[in-house]
């Protein structure tokens, strides 16, 4: 990457945990990171990242109260590439049942549900991606690649066309979604070593809409 084409990433600051590691991961890839709650900067960004280690409802409320929800929507409408990470990924869907049913951004059809009781929850550790697509976020990522998960809920009823990779924990679930310019992953690419670096650099690729 040349100095004139440093990829810019706008990371939405809405008071969720452990954003520092996401910032560092992008910086290590040579990206310029703007960690901001500024509505205009989010709305006019080229690449928006919605991070998140928090509970669903307080996070969603925070997005609504601050006006960042509209700013993110405006960016997506303009054609910016959006990446939801972990809770940010769950917020992309229509609703979540974490602590009662709450509405999400609804950018990707699907509902966030708890894992079935028979499977160990939270799903913590390294698990394998079952590749469903080979473009975009999954470009160059082999089927069976290991990535790092920490979560207790996952989306259900996702349109198979939107699933770029699945993962199996008590049944298959969407681990990566790609619906037009709206991308998201349930796991933590910033904690997934080499594979995480490949995934995040795909997000930084220039063919961004």
């Amino acid at each position, binding site marked *: 990457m040349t100095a004139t084409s440093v990829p810019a990433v706008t990371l939405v600051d809405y008071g969720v*945990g452990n954003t520092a590691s996401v910032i560092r*991961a992008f910086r290590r890839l040579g990206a310029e990171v703007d960690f901001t709650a500024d509505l205009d900067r989010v709305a006019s960004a080229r690449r928006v990242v919605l991070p998140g280690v928090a509970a669903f409802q307080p996070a969603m409320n925070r997005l609504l109260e601050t006006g960042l929800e509209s700013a993110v929507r405006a960016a997506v409408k303009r054609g910016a590439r959006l990446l939801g990470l972990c809770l940010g990924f769950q917020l992309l869907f229509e609703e979540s049942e974490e602590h009662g049913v709450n509405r999400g951004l609804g950018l990707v059809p699907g509902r966030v549900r708890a894992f079935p009781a028979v499977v160990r929850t*939270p799903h913590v550790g390294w698990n394998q991606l079952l590749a469903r697509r080979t473009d975009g976020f999954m470009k160059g990522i082999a089927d069976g690649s290991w990535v*790092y998960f920490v979560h207790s809920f996952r989306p259900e009823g996702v349109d198979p066309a939107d699933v770029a990779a699945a993962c199996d924990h008590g049944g298959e679930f969407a681990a990566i979604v790609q619906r037009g310019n709206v991308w998201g992953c349930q796991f933590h690419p910033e904690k997934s070593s080499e594979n995480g670096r490949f995934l995040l650099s795909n997000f930084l690729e220039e063919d961004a809409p």
Partner: protein
Amino acid sequence: MTVAVRVIPCLDVANGRVVKGVSFENLRDAGDPVEAAVRYEAEGADEVAFLDIAAAHEKRGTLVELVGRVAEVLSIPFTVGGGVRSVEDADALLRAGADRVTVNTAAVEDPSLLTRLAERFGAQCVVVAIDGKRVRHGSGLAVMRVMTHGGRRETDRTVIKWAAEATGAGAGEILLTSVDADGTQAGFDLEMLRAVRTAVDVPVVASGGAGQLDDFAKAVLVGGADAVLAASVFHDRVFTIGAVKEAMRRAGLAVRPAPAHVRTLLLRYDANGLVPVIMRDVVTGNVLTLAWANAEALAKTRETGLAHFYSRSRKALWQKGETSGNVQRVVGISLDCDADAVLYDVRPSGPACHTGADSCFSRVETFDTFEPGAGPSDALDLTELFAVVRARKEAPVAGSYTNELLEAGVARIAQKVGEEAVETALASVTGDAKALAGEAADLLYHLAVLLTARGVAPGEVAAKLTERRGAPRRENP
């Protein structure tokens, strides 16, 4: 698909440095934790654990600063523990970039700390470290008790009840260290692991006692552990992470393979796709053999931790010792300055040469002698001296003074060393430089004979000298 069994190297730290030692008073600096953590990630560690063993005595700031430095470079999860006593302590570590915190003594004293931590950060961030030890009071049965304060203080809690209580209070994971097994290298405490496994649903990390490669798979298959943790076997490079994972994979466990090593991309293979590999005994420094490797042989070596080569005559990959059993455990792989030769540092389990000699370079045969340089240099290399003395010992030569000495025995040689030492000392105060050099040469010669007679390899002396100098360990990428 299932979640991979995690392999977790643990680094004991104090004052921002890795430390080693058997007691808190006898700690030895063992390197930079950030460097070690990065190396572990490259080797395929699934997580790294940091335990601040001096936390009770030290300022917290050092640890938080270290966590920040680690977070800057590591892209796998890492856990930090040691002296976490409050939500504020945990918050500082998590903010600095840790993924999880480990709580031990403070949780035993006040289990509600676990609840407060879980409510604030989520149960998956909270690891309760339990140190268990079998204690027998009177003539009763041994009971597995919870120990605190670094395993030194006995509590009235039992391991099983505390495991259940701690997870009920909010701990999302248990790091179970058997004080009985720790340091024995006799294997993980399978009985204690099973007992805890049946008592809780959260992941259990096995710690303490790893000594053999098989031990890791047993902790999972028999003990029911979800992850395995070890410190010294990884730090001392007895095993690589890759070797442990390979052993677990062979035992049928799901493990995440080590990522392709970036370094080998730099290697310059010859036209046949091969590179020469020099194998060196990491303890004695002796050169053992010269062989060839292709990319596959190198990958296999890294993955298994055992020396693999490519045979040019058989045109096939082979593992050193696959027929003789004399495997060579690789503790480091380095490239030379222009990346067209490789060095394996190994711990041999038997002779490296097919003739049965320790080294393929054991024959002392001089093809050419070279004229020594014009003037005295700074170098003093005793390798040839030792080689000749050793050759004489193995194949006596009639009329050889060396053989005469060796036959006279250690007591006689020791006496000669004493005499030569006195003569050297005298020459240094009464003679000129040339006389001193002559006496010093006599002393070194007799010393070489003495060491050879007693079977002390020159490398052992070299190692001692390095140790005395306080030089850092040779870094292996």
